[in-house]
């Protein structure tokens, strides 16, 4: 499903972001990327949906070399990959329903699909009764659920999560993890999640890829934080 082959990425004027990284992630896996800030976790994720291109090496998604992708095909790649962020990236002037609908509208989905999919996904993330609220009327955990609904409403095969619990208290974070776990198990969605959260990693006991200064230093199935 996802394959990195000797990938190196460097940003000008910064220490190397990713150094000769090789990893393979299969369909339906749940993988934690762990490591301190600046160890290359975000770069790893950003390479997968071509927000970044590697300096050397290859990134394959669904068997296709992302680097060879025509620019006009990049949106098609991104439709298969949902994204969740630490800061949610919700649109403050739109309601929950509009935020989630937006993701389908801008890829040209027909209205009748939007009208059935959006309430269903909002129900799934537990916000069926808050669809007409605006983001600033919701708690942090609820906002992250909206962002997960938006990322998942188009049924992507891969879900990337960059510190999705970074802004949340432990109890709320557990709720989010429960939701991601459910998405992973029920829809066989591949989930790659970068995190600092030791408690979550140790509790979930899923595959752990540890990065340090851009290198993969550990790759362990059913692993712990360290």
């Amino acid at each position, binding site marked *: 499903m996802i394959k990195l082959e000797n990938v190196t990425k460097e940003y000008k004027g910064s220490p190397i972001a990713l150094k000769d990284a090789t990893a393979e992630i299969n369909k339906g896996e749940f993988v934690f990327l762990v490591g301190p800030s600046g160890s290359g976790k975000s770069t790893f994720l950003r390479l997968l949906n071509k927000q970044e291109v590697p300096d050397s090496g290859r990134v394959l998604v669904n068997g296709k070399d992302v680097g060879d992708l025509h620019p006009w095909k990049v949106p098609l790649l991104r439709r298969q990959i949902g994204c969740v962020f630490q800061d949610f990236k919700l649109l403050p002037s739109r309601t929950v329903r509009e935020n989630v609908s*937006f993701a389908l509208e*801008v890829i040209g989905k027909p209205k009748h699909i939007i009208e059935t999919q959006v309430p269903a996904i909002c129900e799934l993330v537990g916000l069926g009764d808050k669809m007409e609220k605006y983001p600033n009327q919701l708690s942090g955990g609820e906002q992250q659920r909206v962002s997960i609904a938006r990322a998942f409403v188009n049924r992507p095969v891969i879900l990337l999560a960059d510190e999705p619990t970074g802004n949340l208290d432990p109890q709320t974070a557990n709720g989010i993890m429960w939701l991601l776990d459910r998405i992973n198990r029920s829809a066989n969605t591949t989930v790659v999640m970068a995190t600092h959260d030791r408690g979550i990693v140790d509790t979930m006991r899923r595959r752990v890829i540890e990065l340090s200064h851009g290198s993969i230093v550990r790759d362990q199935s059913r692993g712990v934080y360290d």
Partner: protein
Amino acid sequence: MAVRVDYIVKETALNIIRNPSLSIATVLTVAVSLSLLGAALVIQQGVSGLNTRFKDDVEFIIWINNDASDDQISSVERALAESPVVKSAVFITREQTFAEFEEYFAESPEVLAAVTPEDLPTSFRVVPVNPDLSVVEQLGRQFTPLPGVRQVDFAGDYIRRLNQFSSAASITMTVAALASGLASSLLMYNTIRTALFARRREVEVMRLVGATNWFIRIPFMLEGLLQGLVGAIFSAGAVLALNRVVGGAVKGADFRLFDSFALESGQLWVITGILLAAGALIGAVGSGVAVTRYLEA
């Protein structure tokens, strides 16, 4: 993937409603810049109209006595043709003079009714080789004593000065029109960039969920097009008002020299069309270019 019309209409409307101050700023920017452009076009049209009337370089007119014989007329004609300092001379018949007379007094039918072509003199309109005033006057005086010649009228220094002034004005206005067009494009571009900066998160989300670049651009471009068009309508209104004021002043004066500045409706439609097209184009292209900055993958 079909581009949904209802989505685009909704997004465009929402964009405008959610950012009223920036929409107003954009519209006003376009309106002011295009008004400048429109005024430049009006003046340029006026100047070129002025030039059409006087560009023939007619420096003096030899009026022939009504009772002059054909021999006398042809001897004047010969003298003109043989003179090395006369570039060209055109004979104006009574009918031609009457036609001009009719145009001149179009709004005074009582004057026209009192005159027939037979009452009017024939004339030669002369273009000398050297348009210098003293030379022209000297040349013209040579024809005054010829038999059959009633009078020689000189175009006069002031018309030639006006002519020089008007060609300078024409160049200045063309430059001004280009400069104001450029300025309005840059202002539009900046205003739209500001508007987009306020919405960079929206663009970011669109990119992340896999919207194509054109899909992202279209609502922004349509919004820019509408704002440009509304601004252009204001500027067209300003130009029409300007023309009415100038036209009123010109019509009120007994000096018909500046009549060309009161544009005919055909010319005004052309200018209005140019302004609307320019507004729409500046708005759409400015938005398209500005949004592209946020689309780099």
